């Protein structure tokens, strides 16, 4: 009889994942603290051209870019003369399943099919589940989506319930859990039980699938606008969106700055039952964005392919109220109803554009579908019912879990920079961990790549540990 206690399942993690991803992650480990990230990415065996071909088989990609002229005009009304970059969005909601996550799911599902797996399992409360369900439907594979959905009173986040509906509509089995990180042990147990492929968000297949998004941005801007964008803003949670997009931009030779944006949920504990339904954002927030950036390897694969600290030039936060506000701006000024994920980076872009020149270009690289449960109206209704104080005012007064402050004027929308050097230090500390031997030059090089920092910086941090 298999021991299915939490500890026993987690102890089998590496063996289960090896079986369920068809990849031995040990082969990429280096002596010391590092591993060969690029070798792991190359081990997918797919070039970007091949991934584009695979995605086209699933009708994924080639999503339009849209210039938000009215929103740009509004930003210029808030900016100094001559300032206010042109704001564009890449309308990823037009992908099958309604978000960029289709790119991420497609390569995993394709790989699962190729290797002869009968189905796929994924742990996600978000769009990724719908994307995996969608691609699995196209590929004729079975699909299980495991969600963290309810608090202990069985009250579900409306946005997550909508995702459950969508996954079921696309033929998936949805397993719903209460709050807690043991979601991953449940996934591991299901992988053992079914023998399905682990369509994890964090495998190289998933991240390689997002590279096409960055690549397309460069191609489309060159063809339609005649130049590369200056800034690309990515909503950041687990880090895969930013990592894949940045890698794609680099592969296309585009040197646009990559800025991460998350909703500020500081002060709320992500594994707290009591605080679960005090959040008005289920993803794209600092509760995922910060820990996954400084400790990417605590996901459901031994080494995550999402390593955003390697690629971000800047990391800013915006308030919940600012994102709701900008979502309504998008509807009222541009005629586009979109979901919250892309609108997190749109709120950031609206403010960042005001510091840039009028002839510069800032791109929000995703939109997502919206609908019952995940439209701003049900989100705000749910918050108000949970006792959150919703009012107009200055967003800087917002307290996550207590209030949502809608800007009394668009000029009040601000971004707050997170201290990247502080995050780099945390990353180095995490990576070194309990390693006792003196670090080799190879270890230092790994840390430089992990943090996108100089040798001097890394050696300085290591010396201070």
């Amino acid at each position, binding site marked *: 009889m298999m021991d299915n206690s939490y500890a026993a399942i987690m102890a089998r993690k590496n063996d289960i994942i090896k079986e369920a991803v068809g990849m031995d992650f040990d082969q990429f480990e280096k002596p010391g603290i590092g591993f060969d990230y690029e070798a792991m990415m190359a081990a997918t065996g797919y070039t970007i051209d091949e991934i584009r071909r695979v995605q086209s088989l699933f009708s994924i990609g080639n999503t339009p870019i849209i210039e938000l002229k009215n929103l740009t005009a509004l930003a210029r009304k808030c900016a100094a003369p001559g300032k206010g970059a042109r704001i564009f969005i890449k309308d990823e909601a037009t992908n099958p399943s309604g978000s960029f996550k289709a790119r991420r799911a497609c390569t995993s599902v394709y790989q699962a099919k190729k290797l002869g797996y009968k189905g796929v399992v994924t742990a996600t409360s978000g769009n990724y589940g719908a994307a995996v369900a969608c691609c699995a439907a196209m590929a004729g594979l079975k699909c299980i989506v495991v969600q963290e959905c309810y608090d202990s009173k069985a009250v579900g986040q409306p946005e997550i319930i909508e995702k459950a509906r969508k996954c079921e509509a696309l033929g998936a089995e949805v397993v719903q859990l209460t709050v807690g990180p043991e979601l991953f042990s449940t996934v591991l147990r299901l992988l053992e039980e079914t023998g399905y492929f682990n369509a994890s968000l964090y495998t190289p297949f998933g991240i390689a699938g997002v590279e096409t998004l960055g690549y397309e941005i460069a191609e489309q801007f060159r063809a339609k606008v005649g130049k590369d964008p200056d800034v690309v803003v990515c909503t950041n949670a687990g880090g895969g969106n930013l990592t894949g997009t940045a890698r794609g931009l680099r592969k296309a030779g585009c040197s646009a700055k990559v800025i991460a944006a998350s909703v500020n949920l500081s002060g709320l504990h992500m*594994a707290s039952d009591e605080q679960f339904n005090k959040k008005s954002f289920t993803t794209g927030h600092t509760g995922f964005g910060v820990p996954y950036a400084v400790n990417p390897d605590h996901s459901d694969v031994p080494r995550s392919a999402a390593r955003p600290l390697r690629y971000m030039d800047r990391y800013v936060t915006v308030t919940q109220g600012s994102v709701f506000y900008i979502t309504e701006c998008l509807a009222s000024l541009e005629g586009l109803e979109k979901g919250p994920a892309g609108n997190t980076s749109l709120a950031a872009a609206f403010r960042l554009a005001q510091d840039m020149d009028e002839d510069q270009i800032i791109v929000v690289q995703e939109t997502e579908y919206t609908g019952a449960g995940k439209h701003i109206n*049900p989100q705000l209704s749910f918050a108000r019912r949970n006792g959150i104080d919703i009012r107009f005012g200055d967003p800087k007064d917002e307290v996550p879990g207590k209030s949502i402050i809608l800007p009394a004027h668009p000029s009040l929308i601000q971004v707050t920079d997170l201290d990247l050097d502080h995050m780099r230090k945390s990353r180095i500390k995490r990576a070194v961990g309990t390693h006792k031997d003196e670090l080799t030059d190879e270890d230092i090089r790994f840390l430089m790549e992990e943090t996108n920092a100089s040798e001097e910086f890394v050696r300085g941090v290591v010396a201070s540990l």
Partner: protein
Amino acid sequence: MAKKGDWVQVHSIVLQPEERSDALPEDTKQHPLEMWVKGWLQQDAELGDEVEVITRTGRHAEGKLVDEAPYFTHNFGFLVPEVLKIGDMVREITFGGEK
């Protein structure tokens, strides 16, 4: 009374509070990890009975019968007048000539 072959939802406890991960905040640790699954009921049963279902992927799952013919009720929420005010505000600023 649910009949064999009905589409139902079952509930089970995955981990009792004392079996849960150590890395949990205190409020979460007081509760079990609970699970809900839907499937085709394998025997006639009453709400609250321990039953077996077969899920969309063909898995056999067991749990307490908690819902018959489950359906979704999430919606677009009640009126949030601030949303209308935001729309009016930004249209006025953008197109109404106000700086």
